[in-house]
């Protein structure tokens, strides 16, 4: 088999390289486990530790102290040709965990994945990723991962497990007893084919798909309206007016990375473009999308139907369609309706509520607006969220009736996230054969007879078709670290397929590529690119079958509950990922917890204060977080917390609120439940927020204007910059650069605050995780933070997201004050920080007006007090060997990814050519789903940053201080009337 590999993203020779070794027996020289035992001893935490594998080094401290320890250099026994120690390889792959989809490149060093980058060849995600995707690489090195298969809680081996399960499955098949394969959504065509074939072998097996947060109502509504139970593909890039009801399409809903690309692409204002889409958001909790809306209207869950129906009535009234009576409510939807009508066929109405009635109204509006076949593509279906809540309910009922003899569970954790966990668990106890494929011993796996740990996706072969026609490949980038086996291989073993899944996949793909392959892409090329687009037959949009609309049942008698997914933790799959746990929520900036969000007015009325503990429904105790923009009379709580069997970082963080889901209708809904909320007198619970002050105090920090003003005057909202430029004087000569001057430019108009960059930076630069207590002490280590400011109305504020990192000032205040010259300026305009020179006076931190410098308050490596990935031999595998792990007592900060700059400079020198524009791509910029960050050479007049710098929107943060930052920001433009 031949396999191509990426040297790096662009302009790399396609080299024929040997395949990564496959199979289950780990090669001695590749096995991280092996190294774990023999080589990595003692406190080798720094770069030398990281030089391991291909060039592993171990230090043995001698008994006599003053001697330098002996370091061993252990070469590979046989060095594979594609492995050059010290040079990264990039493999195209796909991230899919049952919920989120992303096409990615995996950066490996010495055959060890260390970073996820976006794949720019993907037509769907276009080099974007999300924070969860970025953090997924750390899951590979999670200590909680199972190292062996388990049989009734005891360690076992694959032969025994295979023998016993095959036997039992065979027996059940003969008896004709019902066995259920319960999986998360599977978008892999090959896996689906495999499951189909597997079920042919065991005809008694039925297959149920379960999504903890489902979208089955959309499928149901579309079945009623179009006769197809599908989720259509939405074109946010084609929509001029978007009205969203609780659909957080920039954060969680379906394909957030794709939608972010589309949405922000439609709103770019560079190069004289003044055309911008407009977003209306009706929602209960402040979501990431809501924070980016031009108009945001907080509504209670019970009001969603009313408002939607009014919107429908407005449009129908003008279009001459049937209107329906609506009880009066306080919301005016006329403006939205007019905007939509003005942009017929170029508008989009979406709702994230999992309620058929709501979705039927949404469909009716979109139909009236003629959006089908223009902004909504019913032929290009989205394959995510295939779960059917009704079938899941039936399954649980059957289990309780004892009708299920066997249950194989892949990538699901209903014992944690099924809304009625107790019902599920009691049902599970009645099941005879219980098999889990979980990677870790999660809540469900604990209850199973057999746990057959699946490989991490970075160790697996797979494919994915998130959107019909858009396929991508998952390929292993590392040998399985532990004695685990891919789910598909397990099925093949039990179905006696012969061979393994990689050959099965290849065979399937060869067949797939033989037809409908216009470019004639080879299998090798597909593996190289990671993506493949099948020729799509245009297909006709099916006719609309009108349905009678009715308002959903709604209970508005008390405090209404609106559950939501956090940008970091999501549904709780990655609750043991310290990066995600510590990622500040883009809206609340809270880390490490979930909490009950209430509106300021509500809080005042109920005498609730930040960190007061409330009891929800008399059972769940949660701290209060007063959230501006939260709909009055509602309370919002994030899902995904309160895991009890996630691992050392994620156990017992926050509270599990899945049981508060609304199951009144046939679907499980995040909102709609009415809860009681009582204050626990005298009890508080500390919350770790990274930002405690939420307004700008009238300072010109994040600048904004409206589209109308911007068209009239491109520098509107940014008048201060001109003033500063004209009035700045200095005693000193301007810094003179030759050849290279690095600069960054951040478009606040594009940035949605999704925090992908924060995690990308953390992964790239070995940023430490410090735990809740230290975050609470305001000591977060992230080099990049996203400042979030509110303005205007406290009940419904306007939101700014402002990524802030080291500005690399030419007149840097921090440089002047360091007594030991540990920080100074480079000829390339970088503010350099020499960690090993730093003695930790922290004067630079004080004197940095942007407060972007971070101090190592403790030793964060090999310290049991900070028991996260850097305290585990396995967890440290994720560290980037090009970046040193900082010692206690030194100051660190954004280096503009100096290691990437140096790497690309070296490459250019080796190839005897000048550096190309866009060649050096920094970590935060690479995977930004909205392309808000630009980076390049300011001395090159044709570079993107140079051009953006000339734009009228551009300003320097705190420019009046005359720090001359190399980083500039561009005014946020809101598309609203005033």
């Amino acid at each position: 088999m031949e396999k191509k590999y990426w040297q790096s993203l662009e302009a790399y020779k396609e080299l024929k390289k040997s395949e990564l070794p496959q199979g289950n027996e780990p090669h001695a020289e590749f096995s991280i486990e092996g190294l774990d035992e023999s080589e990595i001893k003692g406190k080798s935490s720094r770069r030398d530790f990281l030089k391991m594998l291909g060039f592993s080094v171990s230090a043995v401290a001698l008994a006599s102290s003053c001697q330098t320890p002996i370091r061993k250099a252990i070469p590979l026994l046989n060095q594979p040709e594609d492995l050059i120690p010290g040079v990264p390889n990039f493999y195209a792959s796909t991230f899919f965990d049952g919920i989120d989809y992303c096409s990615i490149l995996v950066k490996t060093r010495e055959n060890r994945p260390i970073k996820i980058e976006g794949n720019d060849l993907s037509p769907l995600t276009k080099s974007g990723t999300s924070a969860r995707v970025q953090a997924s690489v750390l899951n590979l090195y999670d200590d909680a991962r199972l190292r062996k298969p388990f049989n009734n809680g005891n360690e076992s081996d694959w032969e025994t497990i295979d023998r016993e399960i095959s036997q039992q499955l065979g027996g059940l098949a003969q008896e004709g007893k019902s066995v259920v394969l319960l999986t998360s959504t599977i978008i892999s065509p090959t896996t689906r084919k495999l499951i189909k074939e597997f079920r042919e072998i065991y005809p008694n097996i039925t297959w149920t798909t379960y999504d903890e947060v489902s979208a089955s109502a959309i499928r149901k509504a579309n079945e009623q309206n179009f006769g197809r139970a599908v989720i259509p593909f939405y074109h946010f890039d084609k929509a001029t007016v978007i009205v969203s009801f609780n659909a957080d399409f920039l954060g969680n809903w379906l394909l957030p990375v794709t939608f972010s690309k589309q949405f922000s692409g439609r709103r770019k204002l560079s190069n004289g473009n003044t055309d911008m889409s407009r977003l209306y958001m009706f929602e209960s909790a402040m979501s990431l999308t809501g924070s980016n809306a031009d108009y945001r209207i907080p509504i209670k869950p019970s009001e969603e139907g009313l408002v939607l129906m009014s919107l429908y009535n407005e449009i129908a009234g003008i279009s001459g369609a049937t209107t329906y009576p609506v009880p009066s409510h306080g919301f005016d939807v006329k403006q939205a309706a007019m905007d939509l009508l003005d942009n017929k066929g170029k508008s989009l109405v979406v709702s994230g509520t999992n309620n058929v009635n709501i979705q039927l109204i949404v469909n009716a509006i979109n139909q009236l607006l003629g959006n089908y076949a223009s902004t909504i593509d019913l032929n290009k279906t989205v394959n995510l969220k295939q779960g059917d809540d009704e079938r899941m309910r039936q399954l649980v009922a059957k289990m309780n009736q004892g009708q299920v003899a066997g249950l194989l569970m892949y990538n699901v954790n209903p014992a944690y996230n099924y809304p009625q966990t107790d019902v599920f668990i009691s049902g599970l106890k009645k099941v005879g054969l219980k098999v889990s494929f979980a990677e870790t011993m999660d809540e469900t796996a604990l209850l199973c007879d057999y746990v057959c740990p699946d490989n991490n996706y970075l160790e697996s072969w797979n494919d994915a078709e998130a959107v019909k026609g858009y396929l991508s490949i998952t390929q292993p980038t590392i040998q399985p670290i532990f004695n685990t086996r891919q789910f598909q291989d397990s099925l093949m073993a039990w179905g006696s397929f012969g061979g393994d899944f990689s050959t099965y996949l290849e065979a399937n793909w060869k067949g797939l590529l033989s037809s409908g392959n216009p470019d004639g892409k080879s299998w090798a090329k597909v593996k190289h690119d990671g993506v493949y687009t099948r020729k799509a037959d245009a297909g006709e949009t099916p006719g609309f079958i009108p349905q009678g609309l009715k308002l959903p049942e709604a209970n508005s008698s008390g405090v209404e509950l609106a559950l939501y997914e956090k940008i970091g933790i999501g549904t709780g799959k990655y609750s043991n990922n310290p990066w995600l746990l510590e990622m500040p929520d883009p809206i609340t900036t809270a880390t490490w917890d979930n909490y009950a969000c209430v509106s300021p007015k509500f809080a005042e009325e109920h005498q609730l204060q930040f960190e007061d503990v409330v009891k929800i429904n008399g059972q769940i105790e949660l701290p209060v977080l007063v959230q501006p923009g939260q709909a009055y009379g509602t309370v919002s709580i994030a899902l995904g917390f309160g895991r009890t069997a996630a691992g050392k970082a994620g156990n017992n963080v926050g509270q599990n609120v899945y049981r508060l889901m609304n199951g009144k209708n046939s679907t499980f809904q995040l909102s709609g439940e009415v809860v009681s909320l009582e204050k626990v007198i005298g009890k508080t619970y500390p919350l770790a927020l990274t930002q405690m002050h939420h307004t700008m105090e009238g300072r010109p920090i994040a600048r904004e204007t409206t589209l109308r003003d911007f068209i009239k005057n491109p520098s509107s909202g940014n008048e201060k910059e001109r003033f500063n430029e004209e009035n700045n004087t200095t005693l000193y000569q301007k810094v003179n650069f030759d050849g290279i001057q690095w600069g960054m430019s951040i478009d606040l108009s594009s940035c949605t605050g999704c925090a992908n960059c924060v995690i990308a930076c953390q992964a790239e630069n070995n940023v430490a995780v410090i735990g809740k207590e230290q975050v609470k002490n305001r000591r977060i280590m992230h080099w990049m933070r996203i400042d979030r400011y509110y303005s205007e109305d406290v009940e419904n504020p306007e939101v700014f997201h402002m990524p802030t990192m080291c500005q690399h000032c030419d007149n840097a205040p921090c440089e002047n004050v360091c007594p030991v010259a540990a920080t100074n300026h480079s000829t390339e305009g970088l503010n350099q920080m020499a960690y090993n020179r730093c003695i930790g006076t922290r004067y630079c931190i004080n004197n940095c007006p942007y407060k972007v410098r971070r101090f190592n308050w403790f030793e964060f490596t090999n310290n049991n007090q900070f028991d996260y990935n850097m305290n585990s031999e396995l967890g440290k595998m994720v560290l980037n060997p090009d970046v040193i792990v900082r010692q206690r007592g030194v100051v660190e900060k954004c280096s503009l990814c100096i290691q990437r700059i140096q790497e690309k400079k070296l490459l250019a020198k080796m190839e005897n050519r000048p550096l190309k524009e866009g060649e050096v791509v920094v970590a935060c910029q690479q995977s930004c789903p909205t392309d808000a960050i630009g980076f390049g050479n300011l001395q090159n007049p044709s570079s993107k940053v140079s051009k953006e710098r000339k734009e009228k929107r551009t300003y320097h943060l705190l420019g009046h201080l005359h720090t001359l930052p190399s980083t500039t920001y561009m005014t946020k433009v809101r598309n609203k009337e005033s």
Partner: protein
Amino acid sequence: MINTGIVFKKPLALNAFLKNGLLILLLLFSSLSFGQTAEAEANFAVCKACHTIGGGKLVGPDLKGVTERREEAWILRFVKNSTEFIQSGDPVAKQVFEENNSIPMPPNNLTDEQIKDILLYIENGGKVAGASEAVVEQTPKPAQDELESTMILAEKKQAEAQNLYITFIILSVLIVISIFDLLVSKILKARWIHVVIMLISVVVIGEIVFLESAALGRQQYYQPEQPIMFSHKVHAGQNKIDCKYCHFTADESMHAGIPPVNVCMNCHSQVKQGKLTGTKEIDKIYSAIERNKPIEWIKVHNLPDHVYFNHAQHVNVGKVACAECHGPVEKMDQIIQVEDLSMGWCIQCHREKEVQFADNKFYDQYTKLHQQIKSGKISKVTVQMIGGDECQKCHY
């Protein structure tokens, strides 16, 4: 008397510079010549392990004039897979095989064109076309002398390091004696003698302590025992195997790389007996393969963790000869660290070393420096001038 890292560096660095200049000249010529022959030279590096061109018989025969002795087609077949060729019953091949102690030549996967290029290279007398005799023959000589003197210096300094401890002890004793005399025994009446002795001793001891503590963690003249008595003198010196044949990633990676066993096996699949150690040491390679365990070499040149050093930058881009940092490896049976690898030593070179400014197109973007060269303001561009002494060139 003590290596300050600065005082001693001057002449050394100067020598290094002279020597580099010549080596660069050499490399310049080679890069100017035809690409094919340059490649041939690289490919011939493998052959050099057993063959010479006019240097007499090593393991295999002297290849000088081989194109006249044998037909091209014969050579092609032999080179590609000699064992197969011999077994096929070719009498000439068999004869050659037996003449050379029946040591088979390992098969190669070179293309016909590549082999032909090598032959052309051999015909040329082992020189890249275009390079003049004088350059090749004469330049290495002074350089080698320099290296030899470096070697002597290294040994001398090693001895000096020994003396340092003795000095330290003697002076400490002197201080104690003079204090004793001053307070108790009072043999010497002239007190200024005590004062002078103590002052001088304190200054010298202070200097020793300062320099020794500066050298803490550094390993100049470090020469550990290796698991295999591998001699660079034999391989790089006598057999003239190119450094980059074994340390083959030095051109493209930050690590020069310790060769994996399969590189050893390229030659040692045939060469099973060493001149000095017989089969004892070479057998360790085979045993490593049998036990499926890599050889655990002791790393000699260690940099602290906070230093990022990239071999490709220096070897490939900067055209720095290996010996400039590693010393005369081809004269060492066991590798010894010649330089102290201190930051001062690095910086000193960065200050003096000239960048391949005109030759590498990467540097085209430094327009102001180019102008200065044109206007004659500066004669050369050193690494320092493009920011080579800045923190984040090495520390990140």
